[in-house]
């Protein structure tokens, strides 16, 4: 199987991971990332569901603070998965907000914690490095979550306990 074929076949990983992030946000429990780090996931003001890989169907998009998730939940019950989600991550006592899209796990509109701005060339480089550190931190947490997801999802061919939990949750159980 060539690389392109493999990439197309595995696009579902992004959708399934984002759906699991929504589930995590509703558990309201910190997730242990190891090495003394933990992260809390919050659902933001944007959620888009689409047909699962290989299926056909329409998209469901919900947005805004007052949004009702009923329509999105109905989409889940009909077999749709999350294509894009805005989440908050509470990490190292800082708050980050970002939008993530499947299938590439593209990160956009990432809002970082504020950074003190000094003056002069040195302060400018410090600011760059601080931003790099913050971006690295949040992407590292995202990769940590993806790693935890994969560990559970690949536990057996049926997606392990992780998928059974996700299925119960998606059916409102």
């Amino acid at each position: 199987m060539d690389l392109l074929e493999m990439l197309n076949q595995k696009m579902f990983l992004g959708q399934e991971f984002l759906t699991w992030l929504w589930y995590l946000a509703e558990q309201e429990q910190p997730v242990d990332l190891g090495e003394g780090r933990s992260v809390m996931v919050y659902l933001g003001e944007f959620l888009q569901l689409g047909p699962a890989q290989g299926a056909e169907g329409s998209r469901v998009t919900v947005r805004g603070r007052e949004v009702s998730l009923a329509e999105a939940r109905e989409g889940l019950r009909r077999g749709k998965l999350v294509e894009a989600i805005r989440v908050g991550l509470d990490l190292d006592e800082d708050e980050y907000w970002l939008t993530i899209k499947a299938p590439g796990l593209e990160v956009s509109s990432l809002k970082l914690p504020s950074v003190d701005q000094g003056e002069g060339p040195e302060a400018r480089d410090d600011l760059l490095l601080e931003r790099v550190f913050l971006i690295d931190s949040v992407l590292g947490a995202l990769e940590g979550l993806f790693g935890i997801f994969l560990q559970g999802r690949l536990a057996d061919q049926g997606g392990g306990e992780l998928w059974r939990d996700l299925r119960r949750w998606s059916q409102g159980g």
Partner: protein
Amino acid sequence: MGLFRGSVTLTRYQVVGNLPSSLADFLDQRVRRFAFRSIEDGTEELAVGWVSVHDYLDTEFAYGGYHLDPYIVLGMRIDRRRLPAALVKKYHRLEIQKALASLPPGEKLGRSRREELKEKTRLDLLRRLPPATQAVDVCWDTNRRRLWLGSATGSVRELFEELFQRTFELTLRPLIPWLLARELVGPKGLEPLEAARPLALYREEA
């Protein structure tokens, strides 16, 4: 478009290929060779090159280096002249009118002459049109071979991938979930990963 100001939109890459041992010299030579060259006084429609991440007018990197070990932080500047087709059409017609006026009555312009006038119109307009500038932040972690581009736009990504490859003779691989997953699961997890198929959340009741 940025990594270093405001909210961040980015594309993640893995850098594939070997870096030379004298990294600083190599980078300096290559970045300067492919630094942005102005097309302000010309008729070129596109120019792409490296600039300081602090100021897209700085191609000498006067306000500090781009090498904040282990990171390389650069700006990619894109200057474009985009001629609206309707504008070319209008001025082409005016050129044709002028040319016809200088011909004896009843004589027509040949196809090749019309094409020549179209190209002349295009170049005249390009000369008068200042290019629009866009600057995109780039951050490359040379230790971990990861790179972030401060944009997710397809056309910007294409220009960047081409410039990066020409400059450093290294390949960029977008860090999509599948490749990231391969890295995260390690050698033992590869078999279940490759065998994994989409799962359904909804199971039809019998």
